[in-house]
């Protein structure tokens, strides 16, 4: 008897839990309520409301990913170079929030940003004008950055500490200044970490409906909100499935772009 048989349950789960459901969603996406073939659900993406939601989602996901990257990379560099004996503990501090339920974390920002919330109370107390970003895209971006920052920090830090210290010293030894070392050695060598950080934050941000619901107060409609709406209160499943298919295409495209970036950066490594 071959050992191959042990992979049976795995294949069964893959089939029933992944492949068939993907087929089903595709089926719903290209049929109407009566089961007849149609492209209407997919074409629906071009209507104003849907297209805007998709573009807004892409933009907010992009902005929040870039912000995460800009925060996480210098942080990774500082952590890598810090000679603190508690280096491991420092890293732990920065990724600990990862384990906290993300809905509760998002809720915390709602509490902070409320019109009469803590932040505005503090701002008022020190005589500064109050901040009105709750229920705006800015609050949603803030929430996305907050939720996915630890997922960016960890892979970047891991990539940075893997870089051979001698390689960096060799670059300095050959006359490079800090900027040149960063540009020509450190950043190219940390591309794999950057890529996995982006993947872990970008796709969930692009498809989220919870963050935009909690911090956008129903006023920020992302593609995720539209799809979720169709499956709950709207109950036009075919439309929801069609829009999901379109969203998947966008995910695949962005993954391919990231992958390309990865290869360009890493191409010389392999």
């Amino acid at each position, binding site marked *: 008897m071959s050992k191959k048989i042990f992979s049976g349950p795995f294949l069964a789960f893959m089939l029933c839990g992944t492949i068939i459901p993907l087929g089903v969603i595709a089926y719903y996406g290209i049929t109407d309520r009566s089961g007849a073939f149609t492209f209407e659900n997919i074409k629906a993406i071009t209507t104003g409301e849907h297209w805007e939601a998709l573009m807004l989602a892409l933009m907010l996901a992009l902005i929040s990913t870039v912000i995460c990257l800009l925060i996480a990379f210098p942080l990774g560099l500082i952590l890598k170079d810090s000679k603190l004996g508690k280096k491991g503990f420092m890293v732990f501090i920065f990724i600990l929030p990862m384990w906290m339920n993300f809905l509760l974390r998002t809720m915390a920002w709602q509490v902070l940003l409320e019109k009469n919330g803590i932040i505005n109370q503090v701002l008022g107390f020190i005589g500064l004008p109050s901040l009105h970003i709750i229920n705006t895209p800015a609050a949603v971006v803030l929430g996305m950055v907050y939720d996915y920052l630890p997922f960016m920090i960890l892979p970047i830090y891991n990539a940075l500490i893997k870089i051979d210290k001698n390689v960096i010293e060799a670059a300095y030894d050959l006359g490079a200044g800090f900027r040149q070392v960063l540009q020509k050695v450190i950043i190219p060598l940390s591309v794999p970490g950057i890529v996995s950080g982006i993947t872990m934050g970008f796709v969930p941000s692009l498809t989220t409906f919870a963050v935009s619901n909690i911090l956008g107060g129903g006023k920020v409609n992302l593609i995720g909100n539209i799809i979720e709406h169709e499956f709950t209160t709207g109950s036009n499943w075919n439309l929801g499935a069609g829009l999901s298919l379109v*969203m998947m295409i966008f995910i695949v495209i962005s993954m391919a772009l990231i992958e390309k970036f990865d290869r360009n950066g890493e191409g010389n490594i392999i």
Partner: protein
Amino acid sequence: MKKVLKGIYLALIILFLYLPIFTLMVLSFNEGKTMNAWTGFSFRWYREMFSNRTIMEALGNTLTIAFWAAAAATVVGVMACIGLNAMKEKHRSFFMGLNNIPLLNADIVTGISLMLSFLLFGISLNYGTVLFAHITFCIPYVILSVMPKFRQLENHTFEAALDLGASPAYAFFKVVLPDIMPGIISGFLLSFTMSVDDFVITHFTRGAGINTLSTLVYSQVKVGIRPTLYALSTVIFAAVFVILILVNIISNKREEKRA
């Protein structure tokens, strides 16, 4: 100077990460229902939380689903690794590619596609469908944790055990299993966390009757924030903190022993 700037940078990020969490912690001890004024210290919301049946049920569901999903995914995942390793390179890499689909797919698509399939095949949404969904998305994590250990494994130890007269099953449990145990444990823990953390997939595959903490929080936040949730956040944060510290200490001790 440079050091000071670095310190300020670190401090700002720590503030950004922890200010929300600590705000919730402070508010959870606030007597009053409003979050704008401090009306006195009290354990009121903790008492309410622990006596709230919905919250306790959701907590129970979260933990049991996470445990069973992680356990089942671990068994299926380890078996899958054995099977996949016996396959030809070409087939194995094909199945490993399949294994990546649930990892890379957006949660919302996974959730919706599972929901549609359940309903299409006349399976009503309940605890079981959530569990099935969780097992499905946990398996890839187990395989990703265990497969590298299998590949590092000295193939000859298994053969050596057979050579010395052990049955294949005995050799597996006595020789192979201890070697891949770290991968199995991390796969289990990763699955458990992923399951506890999941909101989107649960949201679509649960029926009306059942809640996990995530779905409960979501529905309550939509209605209006309740101080019991602050208490819940505080308890969860404290639990996570203690567990992670313990895990760190244990793994450090293990490393010391090895060294």
